[in-house]
């Protein structure tokens, strides 16, 4: 052993880095939403490590993700293996996930650690000085403090200096300007005092200021990055494979490598990945994301198919005409992002406070300096007082209070299944006074339930037999609605694309499908047996679980719900009646939704928009605050402030209540900080502020503010 290291960290760090390099790029990353305990980790890792081709597998329980390392790993085999031990796994697009290493966050933590180390050492010396160390001892302690503080302040304060400098360069003022000024002036003046044998040094104040503010900065960063990575995970879950037809065979191909002119096979129940032209004779497609209408659309050969539509019928073939960013879906999504920028003009609470606070602090410090120079003509004494004023008024509350409350609130909401995407979302949610709900996909779930009491036993058996043979969502809903019926013995079962199912039962032709196809007077689903008239099988959309509770809760909070839907008048009215909503608007287009919402906002309302379709995206972006379910399209989720991760809506009112208390607690924190200032500023102005008083005022206010922020965890 020739190398001698100064500390264990220096020996261990290179080893750790090597370890990290080995694991630089996992071959496959999967989302495992159901893992929750040590047994799960053990089971999953043991299973995968035993699989051929897998070098290693590691579960991250915080992110609920599994990274698999190794060459030639087939995602499908891994998914199947996990399924066999009872875990649902969803492959994630590694390219879309952010690089795993959060360098900015680590950087802040390192600075925080250095600031904490320096602060505690300097504080030890300061306590000795405050207890009455004099003469040479005091000077020695001051010098050691200076030796520790100078490099520490210069290193740890960099995030603030950089931000302040970028504001000053464009002749602006932000919160970091008074912060940087206080830190630098306190250090500089203390250094001058120490070199001239002065009694007061503010090294501990400068360091603890840096320490507390770095905590705020780190909390702020942590919240944002964890929310961002959760949102990234949602995006990475999107469709990434399509069936491309090559030499007559369907080959699984990543969507990103599709080009115009490719021929694709779209299986039943799958989202169309790109825009194109229909090559098969017929197709049945769900366009509800575009129009909001729940009924399926029949397409004929040669007609346009758009990315995002869901194939409800038999598998069909299509030729791609627009891929990637050129698809209608992406273009609309892009427009929405542009529209979103207009909302970014919303100034958050901390910024509004900073605009008043920053100039006031500077003026106060400058005024005290001038006043003391005029009173006793001692420039050094006057500068001392000005620095004390700056330290005491330094906006710890602004830098710490708001991030602390937001972190606690966003963490709590994430646990409840709400992904809060935007930093100002909670403040805006707290202000809403009207809630607008989209119907299809938001209040109701895809698929449906049928009321089939009027069927005879034989009819039910035939319907079930026919439905069982098809993968169509409507058929599947029908099978669920007929749990007890035995299925009839059918022969020659065939699926007529776009129309329904057909078979022979006891020598008679039986059909299950669209009313028009059966020659009936209704449009909906029907059953026809031989020459008898067709029987209608009315399918209802199922409301999401907890919708009643959610809407009642909103009413109690003074946020009356309304329903805006592109669906037919009758369907919307039926649901509204069930849920007790009076205010409904049916059969309206995306533009009309947007106009209606803008009108409400112009009347002074703060509108909360909840929706999932492409016809809602403009409204989601324009609303004061917006929520989208995780089943929504990418574009809608991007436009929304909050994404609902659970299907259940029970906790929806809690979202508003937590948002309101977040806002209230932030304001309380400002008040607490202002209270400390109200006591300490006069003391500082009169010249009685010693470094001890400054340290106590600052730490006490920071700690009170953090403790107060924690109360958001107990909101019910």
């Amino acid at each position, binding site marked *: 052993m020739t190398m001698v290291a100064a500390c264990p*960290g220096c020996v261990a*760090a290179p080893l750790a880095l090597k370890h990290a390099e080995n694991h630089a790029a996992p071959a496959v990353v999967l989302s495992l939403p159901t893992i929750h305990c040590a047994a799960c980790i053990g089971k999953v890792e043991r299973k995968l490590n035993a699989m051929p081709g897998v070098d290693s597998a590691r579960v*991250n329980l915080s992110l609920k993700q599994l990274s698999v390392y190794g060459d030639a790993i087939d995602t499908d085999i891994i998914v199947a293996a996990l399924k066999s031990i009872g875990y649902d796994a969803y492959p994630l697009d590694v390219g879309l996930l952010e690089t795993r290493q959060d360098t900015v966050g680590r950087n802040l933590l390192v600075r925080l650690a*250095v600031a904490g*180390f320096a602060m505690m050492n300097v504080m030890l010396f300061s306590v000795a000085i405050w207890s009455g160390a004099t003469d040479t001892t005091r000077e020695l302690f001051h010098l050691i403090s200076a030796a520790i503080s100078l490099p520490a302040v210069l290193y740890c304060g960099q995030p603030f200096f950089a931000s302040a400098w970028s504001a000053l360069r464009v002749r602006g003022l932000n919160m970091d300007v008074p912060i940087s000024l206080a830190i630098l002036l306190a250090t500089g003046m203390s250094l001058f005092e120490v070199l001239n044998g002065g009694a007061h040094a503010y090294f501990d104040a400068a360091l603890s200021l840096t320490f507390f503010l770095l905590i705020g900065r780190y909390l702020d960063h942590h919240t944002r990055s964890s929310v961002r990575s959760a949102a990234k995970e949602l995006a990475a879950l999107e469709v990434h494979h399509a069936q491309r037809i090559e030499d007559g065979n369907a080959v699984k191909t990543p969507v990103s490598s599709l080009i115009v002119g490719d021929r694709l096979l779209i299986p039943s129940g799958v989202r169309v990945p790109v825009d194109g032209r229909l090559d098969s004779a017929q197709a049945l497609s769900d366009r509800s994301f575009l129009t909001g209408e729940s009924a399926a659309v029949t397409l004929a050969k040669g007609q346009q198919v758009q990315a995002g539509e869901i194939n409800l019928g038999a598998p069909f073939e299509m030729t791609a005409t627009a891929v990637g960013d050129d698809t209608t879906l992406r273009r609309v999504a892009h427009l929405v992002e542009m529209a979103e920028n207009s909302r970014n003009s919303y100034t958050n609470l901390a910024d509004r406070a900073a605009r008043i606070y920053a100039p006031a602090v500077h003026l106060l410090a400058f005024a005290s300096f001038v006043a003391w120079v005029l009173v006793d003509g001692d420039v050094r004494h006057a500068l001392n007082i000005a620095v004390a004023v700056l330290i005491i008024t330094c906006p710890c509350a602004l830098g710490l209070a708001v991030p602390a409350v937001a972190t606690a609130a966003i963490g709590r909401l994430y646990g409840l299944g709400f992904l809060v995407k935007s930093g100002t979302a909670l403040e805006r949610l707290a202000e809403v006074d009207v809630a607008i709900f989209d119907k299809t996909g938001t209040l109701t779930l895809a698929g449906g339930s049928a009321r089939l009491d009027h069927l005879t036993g034989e009819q039910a058996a035939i319907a079930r037999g026919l439905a069982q043979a098809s993968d169509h969502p409507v058929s599947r809903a029908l099978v669920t609605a007929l749990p007890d019926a035995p299925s009839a013995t059918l022969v020659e079962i065939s699926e007529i694309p776009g129309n329904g199912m057909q078979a022979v039962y006891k020598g008679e032709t039986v059909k299950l499908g669209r009313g028009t196809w059966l020659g009936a007077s209704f449009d909906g689903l029907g059953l026809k047996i031989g020459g008898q008239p067709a029987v209608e099988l009315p399918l209802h959309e199922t409301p999401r679980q907890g919708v009643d509770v959610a809407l009642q809760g909103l009413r109690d909070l003074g946020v009356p719900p309304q329903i805006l839907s592109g669906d037919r008048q009758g369907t919307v009215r039926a649901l509204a009646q069930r849920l007790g909503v009076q205010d409904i608007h049916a059969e309206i287009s995306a533009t009309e939704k947007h106009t209606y919402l803008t009108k409400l906002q112009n009347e002074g309302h703060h509108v909360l928009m909840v929706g999932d379709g492409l016809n809602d995206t403009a409204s989601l972006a324009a609303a004061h605050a917006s929520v989208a379910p995780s089943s929504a399209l990418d574009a809608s989720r991007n436009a929304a402030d909050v994404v609902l991760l659970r299907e259940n809506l029970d906790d929806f009112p809690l979202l508003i209540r937590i948002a309101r208390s977040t806002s209230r607690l932030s304001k309380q924190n400002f008040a607490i900080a202002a209270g400390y200032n109200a006591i300490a500023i006069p003391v500082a102005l009169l010249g009685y502020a010693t470094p001890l008083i400054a340290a106590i005022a600052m730490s006490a206010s920071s700690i009170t503010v953090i403790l107060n922020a924690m109360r958001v965890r107990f909101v019910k």
Partner: protein
Amino acid sequence: MNVLLILIPVSIILGGLGLCGFLWTLRSGQYDDAEGSAARLLLDDDEPDEG
């Protein structure tokens, strides 16, 4: 007062060791999955496979 000349460097070095230790844990990714690390404590690696 001579005792100070020994105690002060000792206290600073001890603090510095703590700081180095923290930086090491940070660099080796020990804060990347706090929940997982807590759960892994319960895993028994020595247990033979049931299969």
